[in-house]
């Protein structure tokens, strides 16, 4: 799987959305991505890329697009 596929898959599994819906997601703007979903999503991303995110990054993870940028800090190119 490419990093892009792994990234989308993490959203799909954690937030129970379709791969088509994922790129438009913003934290707090859909039922799927609420605070519970957020915790699940962080765990899914950490598993998928074998990283441990810092607290500040977890809080800043506010959209699908922002997440790509944050993962860059962990040397994960999406």
């Amino acid at each position, binding site marked *: 799987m490419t990093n892009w596929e792994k990234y989308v898959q993490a959203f799909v599994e954690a937030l129970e959305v379709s791969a088509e819906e994922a790129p438009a997601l913003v934290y*707090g703007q859909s039922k799927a991505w609420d605070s*519970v979903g957020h915790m699940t999503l*962080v*765990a899914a991303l950490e598993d998928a890329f074998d990283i441990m995110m810092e607290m500040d990054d*977890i*809080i800043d993870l506010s959209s699908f697009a922002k997440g790509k940028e944050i993962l860059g800090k962990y040397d994960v190119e999406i």
Partner: protein
Amino acid sequence: MIDEAALLAIPPYGLLREEKHAFLTRELRALTESHALRCPAYAAMLAATGTVPAAITAWEDLPPLPVRLFKEFTLTSVPDEALYKTITSSGTTGQQVSRIYLDRETSALQSKVLAKIMENTLGGSRLPMIILDTSAVIQNRALFSARGAGIIGFGLFGRDKIYALDADMRLDLEGIRAFLARHGGEPIFLFGFTYMVWQHFYAELRRLGETLDLRNGILLHGGGWKKLADQAVDHAQFNRALREVCGIRRVLDYYGMVEQTGTVYVECEHGRLHAPVWADVLIRRPGDFSVAAQGETGLIEVVSILPRSYPGHALLTEDEGRLLGEDDCPCGRKGKTFEVLGRVKRAETRGCSDTYEQKR
């Protein structure tokens, strides 16, 4: 009002008395003015008490709102379309619950401030975490309340999280042992509500005659002592009992409420609750609500500069407590220290762990 970056840049326990007082007065006055403009019910309450926000020279002069007003009224300072989420307090069936209305800004501030406080308590890195509760609390959205919000909020500070209890509230000893084997020797972060920790973790280990090795654990617990006080269990006994069954040395209580999420008061290694720079406590005499002296027991008022979407920045709780000191704790953290002595008589039960009713 101070912007977010500047607010977060202040060390959580770094301001001395004078400086902190000036800072809080300035911020709380600005919040009061802002809420008075945007929340008519709040403006009416200020008017009724003869308070002119711009004339406030010390935050202690602000009239605190009784927490129960958030049960009886819809108190919000933002239009409906700006609402991001509503948090409800825990409450047993039949009790009215508080409703706290958050916009994105307030919600983000709450998470970020909590992160700063937790960083101070746990150190910088996220630790493997055992949640001393059941995942059913967050899976069932209908039950999602302060208890769920607490687990989610504090859950962010852990990694590789497991829940110690199954859906029927039974202790998953096997799961915990496998987790500990995986993280042998590492510091472990444990979080739970006080009563739940006692009833479903400590008492269960005792009943089974089992022990666990959590000598590297840090347990953070909160949510109310009322049920334990009924069983005549105090702080010292609680800490000692846990140490007996799992060797844990760092057991830290915290005091906080859904009406002021984010600014929690965490116990230090010397057993005192500490007010972080973004919040403060004040003890008021129950008779006339005048400000009590250090050491005197009274009602706890809490102030916080985080509530921007609802007028909850100065609240009179239904808890009794007393101040222990200011800027003088042996742990080195600045600010006021205090202890909570319990709920005032005749107040309803409403702590997160106190409202948990055991299935029969």
